[in-house]
């Protein structure tokens, strides 16, 4: 873990008295099941609407009610939206964690807290604002049962007042949040106002944090990665979806259900142009995907680590019998159950190699909600073009948190359905050989069950087969087939999304992928500004790696691969893929405590290693 602090502690921190505008992180500490999610979303959205670059991250426990939860909002005029470790503005609502939360703050931070918690006594280098939530909520909400909920809206008002969030935007955000539930919105807004007015009257602004209108978000949307991926799947024309609930992946399919019911009912018949099935487990989910993909459907499932493990055998079948399918892995922490509600990039290596025998699978690494959308579309194209399972490696941070994004573009290319022969083709050709490499790309032609032609049928099996898909145990045919599959993997290398590279001839290279991207970019800025260390950058977007990745490594003396796991898994895939000479240049920055990686940790880790080199 990158915990060494070798940099001047807070070199970028403004002097204590200076006004800090649009550059702060807010943390709301509550208890899960207490309904604070709406309040936090109203805050986040109001800032978003003010045109300020923001991100919001929900840190929640693996239970349903009663355990500590934190929501952090970052607003950054520089556009940095990775998690920041340092909290500037704490809203302490949870008795259980209040003391620890306060102790974790840097001097000069602000803390709004529930009067009852009596937190001000703990430190004298913070700015405290006590709020009598119970007293304020009573007149707003006569129904005692509902108070616990509405109570949380009060801090929205308090924070809005203290940070100077535009109350018009707060109300807009709140009404958007409650959609058509006008009564609920009215009640909640009353609570916001109560907080605002209390703060106006009773709290003297003493901290230095403010927000102000910007114009960075025009046309942008706010969406979770899982919803973005769901949209992508729908636009990719997915027809068969199978899933088994698991955090943090469930919301992908659940959101997809909502979208599909709305936009994918056949207007003529009112019937569904899709089938979505909650399977009995992940073994069944992937089996259904294999059956559907074999029959020509665009089929997918979505899961997390434990599900990936259970899919291992079937995915090997998919590789070897060459069946298309798309699998989303919304990664979470852990071997075994681990920390199921925390984020990680921990399945990269084992998923690339999933299943016994000589197997490997293409992986896509979306870094943004935009890529969750676009890579979902690409994944289905790739699966059908390559006739193999394709994995989209998202994570909890991306999948379940809200991220800003440009609007998603409508796809400008038709679906790529791959090499499928229909009855007409067969009439023309007289027949086909399922596993013959006709074009030298390692990919054979296939037919779909139901094709009305006597030469269409073939028998798919995971055991040894020749080019005609007939059973064989002949060694040389087995080798030929395996070599073709290897050739197909080379084709995959050309077809998958290539890296995004920023290169200006510096000595030091940084490699990142997925959500690590955001912290890596900010880290590069810190390295340059604070230490004068200029870096080149390579964001990997898929495995197998395009040749540019090897070239990038080759052209740098030291390359830091930054990732969110203990075992340097992407670096592992690089080690497996690169020529030996390049591997010596690789170093790793690893972060695996379950929280999204932050820039400072990377900067510290890189500088520690740079100093030594």
């Amino acid at each position: 873990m990158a915990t060494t602090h070798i940099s001047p502690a807070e070199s970028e921190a403004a002097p204590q008295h200076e006004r800090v505008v649009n550059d702060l992180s807010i943390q709301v500490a509550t208890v899960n099941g207490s309904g604070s999610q709406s309040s936090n979303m109203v805050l986040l959205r109001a800032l978003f609407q003010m045109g300020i670059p923001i991100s919001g991250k929900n840190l929640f426990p693996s239970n349903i009610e009663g355990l500590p939860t934190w929501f952090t909002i970052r607003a950054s005029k520089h556009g940095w939206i990775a998690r920041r470790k340092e909290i500037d503005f704490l809203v302490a609502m949870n008795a259980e964690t209040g003391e620890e939360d306060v102790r974790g703050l840097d001097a000069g931070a602000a803390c709004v807290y529930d009067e009852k918690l009596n937190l001000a006594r703990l430190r004298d280098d913070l700015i405290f604002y006590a709020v009598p939530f119970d007293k304020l909520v009573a007149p707003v909400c006569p129904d005692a049962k509902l108070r616990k909920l509405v109570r949380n809206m009060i801090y929205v008002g308090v924070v809005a007042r203290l940070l100077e969030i535009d109350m018009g935007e707060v109300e807009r955000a709140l009404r958007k949040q409650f959609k058509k539930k006008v009564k609920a919105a009215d009640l909640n807004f009353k609570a916001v106002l109560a907080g605002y007015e209390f703060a106006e009257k009773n709290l003297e602004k003493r901290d230095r944090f403010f927000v102000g209108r910007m114009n960075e978000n025009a046309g942008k949307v706010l969406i979770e990665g899982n919803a973005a991926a769901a949209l992508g799947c729908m636009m990719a024309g997915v027809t068969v979806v199978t899933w088994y609930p698991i955090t943090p992946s469930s919301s992908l399919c659940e959101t997809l259900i909502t979208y599909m019911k709305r936009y994918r009912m056949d207007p003529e018949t009112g019937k569904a142009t899709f089938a979505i099935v909650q399977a009995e487990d992940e073994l069944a989910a992937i089996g259904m995907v294999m059956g559907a993909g074999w029959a020509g459907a665009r089929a997918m499932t979505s899961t997390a680590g434990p599900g990936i493990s259970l899919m291992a055998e079937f995915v090997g079948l998919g590789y070897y019998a060459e069946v298309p399918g798309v699998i989303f892995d919304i990664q979470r922490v852990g071997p075994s159950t681990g920390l199921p509600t925390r984020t990680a990039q921990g399945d990269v290596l084992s998923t690339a190699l999933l299943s016994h025998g000589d197997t490997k699978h293409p992986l896509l690494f979306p870094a943004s909600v935009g890529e969750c959308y676009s890579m979902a579309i690409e994944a289905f194209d790739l699966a059908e073009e390559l006739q193999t399972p394709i994995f989209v490696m998202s994570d909890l941070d991306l999948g379940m948190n809200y991220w800003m994004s440009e609007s998603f573009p409508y796809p400008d290319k038709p679906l790529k359905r791959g090499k499928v022969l229909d009855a007409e083709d067969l009439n023309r050709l007289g027949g086909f050989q399922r596993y013959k490499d006709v074009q030298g790309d390692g990919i054979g032609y296939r037919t779909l069950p139901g094709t009305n032609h006597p030469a269409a049928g073939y028998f798919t099996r995971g055991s040894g087969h020749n080019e005609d898909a007939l059973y064989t145990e002949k060694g040389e045919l087995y080798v030929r087939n395996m070599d073709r599959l290897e050739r197909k993997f080379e084709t995959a290398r050309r077809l998958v999304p290539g890296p995004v590279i920023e290169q200006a001839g510096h000595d030091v290279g940084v490699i990142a992928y997925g959500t690590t991207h955001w912290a890596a970019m900010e880290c590069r800025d810190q390295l340059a500004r604070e230490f004068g260390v200029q870096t080149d950058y390579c964001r990997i977007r898929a495995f197998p790696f395009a040749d540019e990745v090897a070239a990038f490594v080759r052209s740098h003396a030291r390359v830091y691969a930054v990732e969110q796991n203990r075992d340097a898994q992407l670096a592992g895939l690089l080690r497996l893929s690169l020529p030996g000479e390049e591997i010596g240049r690789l170093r790793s920055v690893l972060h695996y405590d379950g929280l999204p990686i932050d820039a400072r940790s990377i900067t510290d880790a890189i500088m520690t290693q740079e100093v030594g080199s």
Partner: protein
Amino acid sequence: MATTVVPPRKTNRIGLEPAVYKGSKSTLCAGCGHNAITERIIEAFYEMGVEPHRVAKFSGIGCSSKSPAYFLGSTHGFNAVHGRMPSVATGTLLANRTLLGIGVSGDGDTASIGIGQFVHLMRRNLPLIYIIEDNGCYGLTKGQFSATADRGSVLKNGVVNDLPPIDTCALAIELGATYVARSFSGDKKQLLALLEGAIAHRGTAMLDVISPCVTFNDHEGSTKSYSYVKDHDEPLGEVSFIPFFGDIMVDYDPGSTTEVTLHDGSRLLLKKLDSGYDPTSKVEALRVLSESHDNGEVITGLFYVKTGQPNFLDLLNIVDEPLATLPEAKVRPPKSALDEVMESLR
């Protein structure tokens, strides 16, 4: 004489010859019950006049699971992984609801490793013909007990099966399958009739077909045995030798009992459901099964049938055409849809 008499070619109602319904040559042991079932499947599809391209074949792993290669040779087939054929079949039928699915499994493939997927398939009432070629053992891995092995059976290495067999018919009925039957691989007439009924049924049709393994299931007391080695073991002492057998065939009437004498003299007591039996009551079906079990008989026939029950594809309300080949215009919503969603996210 100048005239040649060409005998009329035998064809079925859609004009196809029997050969069209055959597959490649079986690589199973001579005399294996599975081969007899394959023949009945060929006959049934021929007799029913099913277009081969409308069918999709599925199986798991095992000797039994190889048999889809031996019928309907021009039809697409998918030999999946061990015990997980139901999910593959489900996926395929979701992708293309116009297909007629037939799955062949073994008792190991179904009742041991595959019981989870079996349970959920039955529950869904997926329109699929599900055949268990039931020999009470794992043929392909050389004869270990499956979960349908009879209690008290003994393997060559002395291992005894102490556990009660799982009655897949009782389970299927309990779980929601809508056509549930048991037969014997050598009962041509009954098996053919049950298969034809299954082809006509629109829901899960589960057929447990007792199908002796001539090579391994030769334990004393097994109801699925063609025991042989016992007598010949002494002069031969050969474990890797596989004897040759003809199929054992039976023909008996509804309501009656027939005792099949196997090669080693051991006996299998088959009892056929009475022709008056009413297969519409679950409770009655379960009672009959339980009773025959207590009597040491293997009761055969159609235990339960329920028509008109919506099947899984009906419940999903999917369009009539195969999802797999819907045109892009049907599966990619228009730009306006995306715009609407984007707008809602601003």
